[in-house]
């Protein structure tokens, strides 16, 4: 702020000039060599008690003004620099700008212009900016992790660093115990689980239920239970703020702020609520996410394809590569069931593909796998199985469907007999001992969307070293290759399979998966599921019950 214009300043230093100063709206002081006051107008003597002519400025005014006077005088003596430099500072509870001007006799006249209001506004603005920056930073830190524990720790740490000396995050009680997170001065957060009653601290129970916060002045710091005070905190707590952490519908906990020596101002309490609103939102997002991922995890345990192995003298191997790593359960599935009865050691293999993706597809997949499991006793009759499954899945309000292949597998002597039925699914392929690849001639309607379905079952025999491959169209439709957008295709799959004659089932699956992975490289693809059914080489001395591995000949 520039000094008010138009105020006459004497350059003569004559006594009568003080009459002019006496009417000046601002405090005015004149000092002579040595910092001794020569003139003090009434406004100045009201402001600075003890300021009168003959008194040293340093004895009557704050140090900042005496220093500015001294500096200015030094500059005048040296004849260096400008002599306009003002100063500013506090006099009591008021802030002033001091503007000097030189009078003709070499004295310096100081005009004191009050700027307390501006100073306070600037300070408020700076505080507000700092708070906004803090809230932005807090939101960033809180939302960057969807982990509940990290979110609680961040809340306690941030609050203890910026809002109070110490902070405690109290989470909703679990099994009669209160989870607490203590932090002091932005340091490491200490987590604990305390068997305590939240009603021991007035206002805490209410905050945990999401009621509006109680004003800090109503909370007696002496009522603070010992478990609330952070370990190693030595100060005597004089002020407590308890703020709910509002969540989505239900409160996410409460934030308790502690301070020794001094009270929380109304403004600070409002600010604590702003912070708590952000922390609560982040906490409940983290909580929802944790719940979601727990559900997904639980579902996945049941829906992930099983590890296959040798059953009834037939080798089985399966591989599954979901479309997106974060959705580990997709629309493809396979299972091998023991379907034998009365000493008939046969297996039922099912490999399928459910339309859609994500959880929706996973739920439908689960339904199909459960239903088929229940229908295994009628595995001799694929048409009947598929008919019943179709009836179970038909739904009036959607047409989500599945395609699948059923394979009944039975080993007799050295060969494996297969009965295969496709329900709207790509036909199974068989690689013969000489590398020839045959398509199995089965064909049928997809399952779950149409009232009437039909299918044709085909039979084939695997001799030792031959493999039947069931796969989903994720393989044939995988896009990649040299140009990046070519489909892997059936022909390429057949060529790959023709090199797999005489390989164990595991190796066939690994080879096919590897070729497909190389084809798509990092590119996107749909779920890919594959099952190999292989008639093992009969070079083991069958000790022959078909269940044990037997001993191998050279």
């Amino acid at each position, binding site marked *: 702020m520039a000094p008010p214009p138009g105020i006459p300043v004497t350059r003569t230093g004559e006594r009568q000039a003080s009459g002019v100063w006496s009417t000046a709206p601002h405090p005015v002081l004149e000092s002579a060599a040595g910092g001794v006051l020569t003139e003090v107008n009434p406004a100045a003597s009201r402001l600075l008690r003890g300021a009168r002519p003959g008194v040293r400025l340093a004895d009557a005014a704050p140090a900042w003004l005496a220093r500015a006077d001294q500096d200015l005088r030094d500059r005048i003596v040296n004849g260096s620099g400008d002599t306009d430099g003002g100063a500013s500072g506090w006099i009591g509870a008021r802030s002033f700008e001091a503007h000097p001007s030189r009078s003709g006799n070499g004295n310096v006249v100081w005009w004191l212009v009050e700027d307390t209001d501006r100073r306070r506004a600037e300070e408020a603005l700076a505080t507000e900016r700092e708070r906004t920056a803090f809230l932005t930073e807090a939101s960033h830190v809180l939302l960057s992790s969807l982990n509940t524990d990290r979110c609680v720790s961040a809340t306690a740490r941030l609050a203890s660093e910026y809002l109070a000396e110490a902070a405690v995050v109290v989470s909703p009680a679990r099994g009669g115990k209160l989870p607490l997170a203590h932090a002091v001065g932005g340091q490491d957060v200490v987590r604990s689980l305390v068997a305590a009653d939240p009603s021991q601290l007035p206002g805490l129970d209410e905050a945990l239920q999401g009621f509006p916060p109680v004003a800090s002045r109503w909370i007696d710091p002496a009522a603070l239970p010992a478990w609330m005070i952070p370990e190693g905190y030595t100060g005597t707590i004089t002020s407590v703020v308890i703020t709910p952490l509002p969540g989505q519908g239900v409160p996410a906990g409460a934030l308790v702020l502690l301070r020794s020596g001094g009270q929380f101002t109304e403004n600070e309490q409002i600010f604590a609520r702003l912070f708590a609103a952000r922390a609560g939102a982040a906490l409940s997002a983290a909580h929802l996410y944790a719940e979601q991922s727990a559900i997904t995890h639980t579902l996945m345990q049941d829906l992930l394809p099983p590890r296959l192995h040798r059953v009834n003298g037939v080798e089985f191997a399966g591989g599954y590569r979901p479309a997106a790593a974060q959705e580990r359960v997709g*629309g493809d599935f396979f299972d091998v069931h023991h379907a034998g009865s009365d000493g008939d050691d046969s297996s039922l293999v099912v490999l399928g*593909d459910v*339309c*859609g*993706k994500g959880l929706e597809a996973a739920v439908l997949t689960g339904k199909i796998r459960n239903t088929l499991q229940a229908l295994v006793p009628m595995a001799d009759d694929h048409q009947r199985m598929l008919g019943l499954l179709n009836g179970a899945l038909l739904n009036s309000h*959607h*047409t*989500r*469907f599945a*395609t699948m292949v059923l394979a009944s597998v039975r080993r007799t002597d050295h060969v494996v007999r297969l009965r295969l039925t496709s*329900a*709207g*699914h*790509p*036909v199974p392929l068989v690689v013969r001992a000489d590398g020839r690849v045959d398509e199995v001639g089965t*064909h*049928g*309607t*997809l399952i779950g*969307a*149409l009232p009437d*379905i*039909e*299918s044709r079952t085909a039979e084939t025999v695997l001799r030792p070293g031959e493999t039947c491959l069931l796969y989903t169209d994720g393989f044939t439709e995988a896009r990649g290759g040299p140009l990046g957008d070519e489909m892997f295709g059936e022909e390429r799959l057949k060529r790959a399979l023709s090199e797999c004659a005489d390989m164990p089932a595991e190796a066939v699956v690994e080879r096919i998966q590897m070729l497909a992975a190389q084809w798509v490289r990092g590119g996107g693809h*749909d779920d890919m599921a594959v099952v190999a059914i292989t008639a093992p080489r009969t070079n083991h001395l069958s000790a022959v019950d078909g269940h044990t591995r037997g001993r191998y000949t050279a």
Partner: protein
Amino acid sequence: MSAPSLFLTVESEGGAVCLRLAGVLDYDTSDELAARADACIEQGPRAGELHLDCEKLRLCDSTGLSALLMIHRRTTARGITLFLDNPPPFMERMLSVTGTRHLFAPESGKARQSCPDEVRETTD
């Protein structure tokens, strides 16, 4: 996705309604097709025919087929014949593998004439 990947155009002449499909019919776009087809079915084409012209379709995944099956279910309930005109080879293969080709009336020689170029309504 910045731009919609399925473009639908509705045309009608002589009571037959034709929905032209261009682009990608997949998880993200099949609901849109089902909704547009529903609107056409609600109007009740006087000639009792709904044509889906797939000539410009680049891709159709399982959810796309699911939408076609839903359209089939609704047209059947209303006694409307559902035609699939100019299906590209990949679509023929899909319908054949899934055993659903018979649900859609085969493309007649007049398929193109039943879809006149006169555009009544366009969406982007």
